């Protein structure tokens, strides 16, 4: 008979401490790491990954939230492609992005470029431009809505009337409403973009500028040959961030549009507002989920484009 295995007679506590002693430093580290990650992993699985799959799953259902779920495969997507409102909304959404992004990036670049040359009161001016970024979109929407009112209330129309220009309907017009809502969104984002641009311009080594001044390069040349090429990663970052921001526009439209949200006649309605209405006004959960999948795919393509461009540039 073999003698008893030493250790068996020890109490559990001693066994545990002995088990820990026998671990290598590497194993101990791994144990601690997983312990630290336990709650976060649970969080990401339950609050991020599971809902992502659930969104795909719900998009294959016909379901009004209260009744029975009925599996209908890809029918929601087929319905979506036949829905005229969807195409109108998709065009609106891209209008916000394709017009809003270039305008805001151009404005913020020009401001940053000149701000960079101002030395006196530089920080105060920068702060003033930054303040709109801190405001609540919903609160500012009210201010802008007021500015757009007809005479004698709205300041924009009052100012137009001084110059004898006809009154503009702004938010009530099919042609102007989308741009009237885009304006405060552009306005609110400028401060952030200016600061990122300034950080980018500041990061250009001073020697580059000195070399070009020896060569006798003019302002435009310095801008074209030194500043803009050096800012390429910064510009890419801002293009992607603000494109995603405009494609997801919601707060301003919800709080500003005339008649009903997204009005007049859906002319300002973006994708996220359509999702909101489909899910929480009409309770077409499956249809709304299909719309979110479309949004996800659009944003995914943009992110992948950014990644591939970044790779190409850093190589």
């Amino acid at each position, binding site marked *: 008979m073999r003698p008893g295995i030493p250790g068996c007679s020890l109490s559990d506590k001693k066994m545990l401490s002995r088990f820990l002693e026998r671990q290598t430093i*590497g194993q101990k*580290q*791994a144990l*601690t*790491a997983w312990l*630290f*990650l336990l709650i*976060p992993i649970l*969080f*990401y699985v339950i*609050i*991020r*990954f599971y*809902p*992502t799959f*659930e*969104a795909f799953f*719900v998009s294959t259902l016909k379901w009004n939230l209260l009744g029975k779920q009925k599996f209908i495969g890809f029918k929601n997507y087929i319905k979506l492609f036949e829905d005229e409102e969807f195409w109108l909304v998709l065009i609106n959404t891209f209008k916000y992005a394709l017009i809003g992004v270039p305008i805001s990036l151009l404005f913020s670049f020009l401001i940053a470029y000149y701000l960079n040359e101002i030395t006196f009161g530089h*920080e105060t001016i*920068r702060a*003033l*431009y*930054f*303040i709109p970024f*801190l*405001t*609540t*979109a*919903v*609160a*500012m929407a*009210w*201010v802008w809505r*007021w*500015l757009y009112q007809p005479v*004698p*209330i709205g*300041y924009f129309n009052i100012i137009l009337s001084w110059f004898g220009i006809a009154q503009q309907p702004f938010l009530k017009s099919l042609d102007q409403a989308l741009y009237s809502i885009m304006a405060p969104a552009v*306005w609110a984002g400028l401060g*952030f973009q200016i*600061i*990122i641009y300034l*950080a980018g311009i500041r990061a250009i080594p001073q020697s580059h500028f000195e070399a070009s001044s020896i060569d006798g390069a003019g302002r435009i040349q310095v801008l074209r040959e030194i500043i803009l090429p050096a800012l390429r990663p910064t510009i890419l*970052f801002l293009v992607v961030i603000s494109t995603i921001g405009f494609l*997801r526009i*919601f*707060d301003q439209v*919800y*709080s500003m549009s005339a008649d009903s949200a997204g009005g007049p006649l859906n002319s300002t309605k973006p994708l996220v507002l359509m*999702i*909101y209405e489909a*899910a*929480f006004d009409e309770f077409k*959960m499956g249809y709304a989920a299909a719309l*979110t*999948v479309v*949004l*996800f795919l659009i*944003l*995914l393509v943009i992110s992948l484009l950014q990644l591939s461009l970044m790779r190409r540039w850093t190589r």
Partner: protein
Amino acid sequence: MITPILFMLSTSFKEGAEVYSLTIFPEKPTLVNYLFILGESKFIIWTVNSLIIAVLSTFSVLFFDGLVGYTLAKFSFRGREIVFIAILSTLMIPTEMLIIPWYMMSRTFGWLDTYWGIAFPGLMTGFGTFLMRQFFMNLPDELIDAARMDGWSEFAIWLRIAMPLVIPALSALAIFHFLGNWTAFIWPLIVTNDPDLYTIPVGIASFNGEFQSDWEIVMTASCLATIPTLFVFIFLQKFIIKGIMLAGLKG
């Protein structure tokens, strides 16, 4: 640039016919609008709600994003890369896609119209984890090893040695998260039905029907919503701008 904000500010001190004059400085400044908002609406409750949720959620993000960022930067273990990539990949998922499942979840577990329901989606963030990991990677290992030699527990090393060394990154993350939470709209709009649980943006949006033509009242409410963030900005200006630059460069 700040003209709309100035109009908002000046109108909040006006009453009667003066509301529609273009003057920046009111002739007869008055506080009636403020008294009305604070007395007649639930604005104070909404402010308390917004504050509680933003503060708790910010602390949660600092704690967990800090802990996870540190673990992913400073421990070596099998599966580390997978965990990191998985967390990073959540950045690709737009909030709007998760809103319907979150709503279903909240309805099942009775989280509708609760603080927890408003706050739970933002208790940890992929962005914050990524940012903190970047900063912890620059921390010298010797420091951590020395503390281990002295018999410190791993948790104490993280909390008392590593975290204080990345305070600039933590404050940037805190300001970002707080601001994002303070102005968040779509999720609180969906998850709350009871006006007693509205956050400030949802409350202001609910003015839509009630005070539609009382512009001075709405301007005053907008002012009250903006003032706290302006104060935060004035005091923390350097941190905020540095933080945005950091985030912009690292992200």
